[in-house]
């Protein structure tokens, strides 16, 4: 009887530990990312409000004397109206960088350049910006706002690949668009087994005035 009670206590303890992990994954990590996104949004808005941002030569660096709130540079604002995404993209796709928000793959082109730009984002925890990425279908709109222009992309195709299939970063093989944006995230939800890929084509680029 004593052994049974002890076994029961062990299972209760393990169950509480698992609940603690769920709390960490869904709440703890998201609190970190939300605080970092707040700083990035403030930095990005400050950059947009600078007159220098209107200069085509502007590289996105704040003028001397302006205090940056985030230690990481805000690269662009990614807006996906259908799934209520409005986040700041940072440079790099290491797990540290992705704790700030979706990250731009450094080996791909920058938004607005000819070629393929790609962005990775979390689907579980860390604010899960791409939690509903699987709901995007052909024709949905994705907008990327930089200090130079606002780029609008249209979803053309989605696919699921294993993590080693880095050729998806070369763009949609069925598209002839000169500028493409590829979004990647984990799938199925709550695992890192495969990657969900969303291919989009640029449909308009409006320079900032």
């Amino acid at each position, binding site marked *: 009887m004593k052994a049974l009670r002890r076994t029961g206590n062990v299972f209760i303890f393990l169950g509480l*530990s698992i609940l*603690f*992990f769920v709390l*960490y*994954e869904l709440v*703890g*990590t998201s609190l970190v990312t939300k605080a970092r996104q707040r700083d990035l949004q403030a930095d990005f808005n400050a950059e947009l409000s600078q007159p220098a941002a209107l200069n085509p030569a502007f590289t996105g660096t704040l003028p001397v004397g302006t205090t940056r709130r985030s230690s990481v540079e805000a690269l662009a604002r990614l807006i996906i109206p259908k799934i209520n995404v409005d986040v700041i993209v940072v440079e790099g*796709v290491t*797990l540290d960088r*992705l704790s700030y928000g979706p*990250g731009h*793959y450094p080996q791909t082109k920058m938004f607005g350049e000819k070629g393929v730009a*790609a962005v*990775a*984002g*979390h*689907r*579980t*925890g*860390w604010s899960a910006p*791409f939690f509903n990425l699987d709901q995007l279908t052909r024709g949905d709109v994705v907008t990327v706002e930089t200090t130079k222009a606002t780029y609008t992309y249209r979803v053309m195709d989605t696919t699921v*690949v294993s*993590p*080693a*299939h*880095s050729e*998806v*970063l070369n763009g949609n093989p069925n598209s002839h668009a000169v500028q493409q944006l590829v979004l*990647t*995230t*984990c799938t199925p939800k*709550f*695992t*890192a087994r495969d*990657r969900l*890929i969303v291919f989009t084509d640029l449909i308009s680029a409006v320079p900032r005035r």
Partner: protein
Amino acid sequence: MRILPSKRLPRIAILLAVLLGYSVVLWFFVFPWLDRTFINRPAIG
């Protein structure tokens, strides 16, 4: 064999300290490892 002291206050204090230490190890070491190993690796390649 008795591990914890028989007095109530020290016993509770030791239990709370162990629980706090366990939680800290989970939160800062075990959970981040579980997260990056099994849950979150959205980048390709």
